[in-house]
């Protein structure tokens, strides 16, 4: 890990790793187990319903299948939500909003990709404006195949996710902190070199000791480079380029 580039001082990698199960105290183990169980049994869902998959959610939520039986209920803001549902294709423009939303959610957080569109572009594979693989831009826990998946398949997907959370295996959110540079690289490829989100992911990774070898890299270096541009966002782009060139 490159220590020089971190904005705040962090402990070396040795202490950043998750303590193994044998190193935790008995109380810690019990608390973690209770926490994991509650996380698996209480899931607040944020729907990102720009795709056609949204139409399959009302039957899953309402009286036919009733997802509240397994503790899932819809929530309306990213701050409160645990699961981000991407129901179908994402255009380049909507992907920006998804990333902003994802970064505002509080960990542990889970992403679910609905249908073929999030897996490989699906029927929009030839489109210039849609995103082919959602997993390149944000870490995805579960994909549900189908075009569209039926409510039964959606339920099965949720039950699988619940089982993995309960077993402590749904840890894709940690990958976003550990390999942020890779995800940011893909995002910059689409949105340009000056792409910046309000959430300081690198700072969060350092604060919660989730940083890994892939947190910093050439792409996060661009964040620092363009930070001044975003701070002086009133300055026109051409003028800023001149300023940058002169400095």
């Amino acid at each position, binding site marked *: 890990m490159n220590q020089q580039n971190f904005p705040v001082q962090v402990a070396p990698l040795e202490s950043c790793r998750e303590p193994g199960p044998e190193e935790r105290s008995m109380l810690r183990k019990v608390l973690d187990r*209770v*926490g994991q*169980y*509650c*996380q698996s*049994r*209480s899931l607040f869902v944020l729907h990102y319903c720009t795709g056609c998959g949204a139409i399959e959610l009302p039957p899953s939520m*309402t*009286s036919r299948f*009733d997802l*509240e*039986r397994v*503790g899932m209920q819809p929530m*309306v*803001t990213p*701050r*409160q939500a*645990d699961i981000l549902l991407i129901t179908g294709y994402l255009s380049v423009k909507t992907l920006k909003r998804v990333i902003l939303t994802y970064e505002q959610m*509080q*960990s*542990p957080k889970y992403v679910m990709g609905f249908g073929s569109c999030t897996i490989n572009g699906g029927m929009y594979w030839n489109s210039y404006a849609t995103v082919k693989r959602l997993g390149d831009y944000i870490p995805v826990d579960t994909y549900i195949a189908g075009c569209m998946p039926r409510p039964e398949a959606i339920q099965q997907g949720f039950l699988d996710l619940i089982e993995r959370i309960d077993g402590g295996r749904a840890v894709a959110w940690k990958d976003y902190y550990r390999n942020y540079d890779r995800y940011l690289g893909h995002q910059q490829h689409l949105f340009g070199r000056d792409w910046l989100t309000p959430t300081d992911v690198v700072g*969060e990774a350092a604060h*919660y000791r989730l940083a890994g070898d892939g947190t910093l890299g050439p792409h996060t270096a661009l964040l620092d480079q363009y930070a001044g541009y975003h701070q002086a966002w009133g300055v026109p782009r051409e003028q800023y380029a001149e300023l940058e060139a002169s400095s």
Partner: protein
Amino acid sequence: MDFDWQHMLIELLVMPTLAFVVGLVMVLMARRLRARIERRVGPPFWQPLWDILKLYSKRTQVSHGHMHEISIIVLLGGMIAMEVFLPVPGFDTFAHHGDALTLIYLMMVPTLGMALGVSACANPNGSIGIARALTAMLAYDVPFIITVAGAAMLYGTTSLPEIIAIQQQQGLEGWGAVQMPLLALAALISMQAMLGKEPFEIYVAPAEIATGPMTEMSGKFLGSMFIMQCFQLYTVSVLYTTLFLGGGENWATFLIKIFVVVAIPMTLTNIFPRYKTEAVVAWLWKWPTAIALVGLFVVMMR
């Protein structure tokens, strides 16, 4: 009155805990009622507890500064202070020292605490939400205070344990709901608004302002909000039971009464849409206030 420190300490610890546990079951009942009305099965028994534990076990927590954190303490502190002053069977040492007026004052503390925290968040949805919450408070407090004044006139005291004693001496005929039915009706309507349920659900309004004051709350902050909801349901139902339903002779009748009281707004909330803010104020200042004033007139004529 002599001070029994040991007993007081036990009450200080036991009453908020009891309120929390009963409140959790009330939240469960509300969610189950909603599910049954929508012909669903509803959540499992432990769901409200799991929700709160999950929110407290979140790994990352976004704080919006010291004011945000202090506000949660103000909010929960106000609620806990209120629980202590409520007269419940077996625990009314503090209730003898406070009265209905103390409770009216304390009821404003959580909303004001929430306003402090939301202003620290600087979220437009939150600001609109808290402005609406304070407007709603202005609206429902008028019929509510008239109601409490009417009850105080009828019983000749504002002390809640004494009000309960008077009602229990006279039996069913002595109940506030029988003695002053108009005031009981007005209080029921303002209770609906106090709990922020449809048709007065202007400050949560998930589809419109994204749960208003709770927009920026995450993790432990939202968990504290959930705990506040438990306390709120308990407080309002106990206050209503005390003023109009003769309080609790023992824990069995007391629990039955407060759960019936909570079931009424929780059922109504599922069949109404939402008013606009100005319509809530106009409606609450018109109908429940008029009913309460007529009820007050009737009480004064006796």
